[in-house]
């Protein structure tokens, strides 16, 4: 029941929020997001004692034998936690902002949350597909309606890209469905043994869909524009949570279902990911727009995670899952600070900024902390995940590990360069007007900082959570070949 509630709360409250306006919508959506978080914590408590009690099954379409089948394992619980932590943080951050048609804005946000939670929870392929699309539609409207001046064509590109990718995945799902005994359940998909030839081309149908969502080079072209043009609250959703859907898809649906296909194409997938890492890092160094810089840095980070997934050993997979959570937290922290700067100063161009450290000390300290976590300095949460991923990648292939390790240096270059340009140097007429963080922003960033340090020093709870069923199934499926 708890898993069903996780989807129902944002879905129902989202629909109600459409009818509210202004302050009512803000407060109501905040309450709703906290309620979802509370349910997640309750689910976590139950997960520790009796995980099977969380499964929920109801008949959906008898003609197709598709069931409304929800469940939780360590990985999905971790992602659900990430989603339900992110939304209150986002809502707190934008508390001070007055969006036009607030009811629709917050309603669509909650609907996209429902879609994403559905993706992480569903154990039925058709249901997974439906939620996968459902998460996209609200985001399309959010970006187009409240985005920047070029938002409409940019978002449209994003939409058509992902829509095309997911339709290819749908073809793959239907094909596999007919190979099973007419069932969409995850169990029947994974217990199937498809021939090498089938797995080889099915791999690409799924991989393209997930690669577009992540995004992996060369499917990434929608991403920097979309991040730049979206309203920051939506960018946080996109980069913090939504890109994880792609990684999650690979871990849950691609690797266990098509282990031979993954084995056949893993080098190609890693190669694309590594190219993406270096390429995006180099471009990030050249950016002067804060949002684009973070967007490219995100491509680099996701590329590393994707490479680690396909390196496919126990360490790299544990690292990816830890990093999925931590990357989500860190990047939301970065977006919050950029949102603050953009709100106060009306620009996100680094050339026009400088000297903020002397005007707004709190903001500067927190920006430094979050940036260092993004570079994965030891004692911050980013470290453990990256360490595990690199050691896993190293075991798989030394050269891939060596080349992608360059990205750490490049990440330091662009992040420190950003800090230097934004925080230090001469105070100019514009930055002299900067005011420091307000209460809401302080609370949101405070939570993030606490998580950065706690998970950096003591990552065990997270590691325990994800080293459960998720990984073992995947690895077992592959070593059992």
């Amino acid at each position, binding site marked *: 029941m708890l898993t069903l509630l996780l989807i129902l709360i944002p879905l129902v409250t989202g629909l109600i929020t459409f009818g509210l306006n202004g302050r009512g919508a803000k407060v109501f959506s905040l309450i709703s997001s906290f309620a979802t978080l509370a349910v997640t914590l309750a689910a976590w408590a139950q997960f520790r004692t009796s995980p099977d009690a969380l499964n929920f099954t109801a008949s959906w379409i*008898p003609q197709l034998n598709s069931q409304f089948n929800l469940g939780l394992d360590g990985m999905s619980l971790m992602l659900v936690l990430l989603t339900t932590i992110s939304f209150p943080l986002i809502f707190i951050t934008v508390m001070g902002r007055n969006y036009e048609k607030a009811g629709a804005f917050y309603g669509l946000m909650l609907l996209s949350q429902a879609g994403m939670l559905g993706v992480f929870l569903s154990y039925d392929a058709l249901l997974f597909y*439906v939620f996968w699309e459902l998460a996209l539609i609200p985001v399309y409207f959010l970006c187009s309606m409240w985005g920047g001046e070029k938002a409409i064509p940019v978002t449209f590109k994003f939409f058509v890209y992902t829509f095309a990718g997911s339709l290819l995945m749908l*073809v793959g799902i239907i094909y596999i469905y007919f190979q099973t005994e007419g069932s969409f359940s995850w169990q029947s998909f994974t217990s199937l043994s498809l021939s090498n030839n089938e797995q080889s081309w099915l791999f690409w149908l799924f991989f393209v869909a997930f690669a577009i969502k992540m995004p992996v080079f060369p499917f990434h072209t929608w991403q920097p524009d979309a991040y730049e043009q979206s309203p920051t609250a939506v960018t946080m959703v996109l980069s913090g949570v939504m890109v994880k859907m792609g990684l999650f898809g690979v871990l849950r649906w691609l690797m266990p279902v098509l282990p031979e296909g993954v084995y056949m194409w893993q080098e190609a997938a890693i190669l694309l990911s590594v190219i993406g890492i270096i390429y995006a890092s180099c471009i990030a160094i050249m950016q002067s727009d804060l949002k684009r810089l973070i967007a490219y840095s995100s491509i680099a980070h996701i590329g590393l995670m994707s490479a680690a997934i396909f390196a496919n050993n126990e360490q790299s997979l544990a690292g990816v899952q830890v990093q999925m959570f931590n990357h989500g937290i860190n990047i939301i922290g970065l977006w919050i600070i950029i949102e603050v700067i953009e709100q106060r100063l009306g620009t996100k161009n680094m050339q026009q900024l400088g000297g903020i450290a002397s005007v707004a000390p709190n903001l500067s300290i927190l920006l430094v902390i979050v940036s260092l976590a993004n570079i994965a300095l030891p004692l911050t949460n980013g470290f453990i995940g990256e360490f595990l991923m690199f050691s896993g990648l190293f075991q798989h292939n030394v050269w891939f590990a060596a080349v992608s390790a360059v990205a750490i240096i490049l990440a330091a270059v662009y992040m420190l360069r950003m800090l230097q340009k934004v925080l230090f140097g001469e105070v100019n007429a514009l930055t002299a007007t900067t005011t420091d963080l307000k209460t809401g922003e302080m609370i949101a960033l405070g939570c993030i900082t606490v998580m950065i340090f706690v998970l950096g020093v003591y990552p065990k709870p997270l590691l325990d959570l994800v080293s459960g069923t998720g990984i073992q199934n995947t690895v077992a499926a592959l070593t059992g070949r």
Partner: protein
Amino acid sequence: MNALITTAVFGIVLMFVGLFVKQRQYIKYFAIAGTVLAFIANLMDAQCGFGMLHGMVEVSSFSVLFNAVAIASTALYFLLCGSAFEKVGEDVADYFALIFFILSGIMITGSYSNLLMLFLAIEIISIPQYILAGADKKNLKSNEASLKYFLMGSFTTGMLLMGIALVYGATGTFDIREMGLGTGELSPLALCGITLLGFSLAFKVSAAPFHFWTPDVYDGSPTVFTAFMATIVKAASFIAFMRLFHVSFSGGNVSGHWQLILAIITASTLIIGNLTAVFQQSVKRMLAYSSIAQAGFMLFAIVAHNEMASQGLILYAAAYSVATIGIFAILLKLNDYTFDGFNGLARRQPLVALMCTIFLLSLAGIPLTAGFFAKYFVLSAAIQQGNLLWLVIVGVLCAAVSAYYYFRVIIAMYFKQGEADATEVTPGFKAMLVIAAAIVIVLGIFPNLLLQYL
């Protein structure tokens, strides 16, 4: 059978109603009452379930379900677009009567079991359409549409007859269940007949390369009649097409002879329909090309001859008809049929814009709308058939293209500045739109509500 008689009789009744009822706005209510009667008569058919008219017609759960979908869609069409009939010309009652005659033809498409009945069905559907296309007598484009449709239509009717004659020559029977093709070697006579039948029916459903009449006819005809021709009539032609090919031409190795031809026709319909729709400036013309594109998806159901295909086609007929009728009804209320004519509609008419969005999402095949499961079923049918994976890939890529032109309307309504306004939007009209959108969403979540009757 009851439904067939009811609709035909009601067509005649309506012609006389025109003589006695002077207030033209009341005629609509007679027509709506007629659809209700026909619906009830159709439900009574469900009980008999055997051959009638010496085996010329065979009532099955499939035909009853399709007839129910067609009659219900027509009722929805009358409710949403009925008042626009008065703007076309003087003879309102005659237009309604013609629609009822078409409907009686449609009642045969799902249940004929004889090639002569097929011919009758197609002709009963076609001839009133030629008249409706030219209903706006003073308008040159309407005249052009009518003439074009008539010439091309009669030409393909000839092909249909020749096909029937050849198949009869090869098999010695008109009964579609007793042709026994596929038991032995296929004679060249039968092969030619099948090909001619396939081409003529492909013309009727406007599949490429037989689609050239469609944009001009749909664009030239009075919009209110285009709404009917592009939806229910098209779906009915597909049902006729599918019944013939699945019942008579799928035994043994016969399907091997036409499957590739039809697969190529399907692929070209999808590609031509979708790519041309992208370049249209008028929403009405875009909908004409979209109807070609959607026909491409419905053709999947014919190429793949299995049970899933017939489920898919029923679902497709319902999903596509309801959504397209809804969009046409909204289009009828606007003054400007170009994409710019929709600019800013969401500001003036938020509810109408929202309903229009739901219909467009359904046509694009987004989950949680009926259009998704419609596409899902026909694509699955093709995958289940095997050997058609290339066609399915072409199909889904075209579906992604179709999102482009459907979303253009959404973008115009929500994100562009403009003064678009809908005239004469009554609360009743809004209520009907909401009901139609509710049907689209409910079928998108629980498609078995419809399919359980199959």
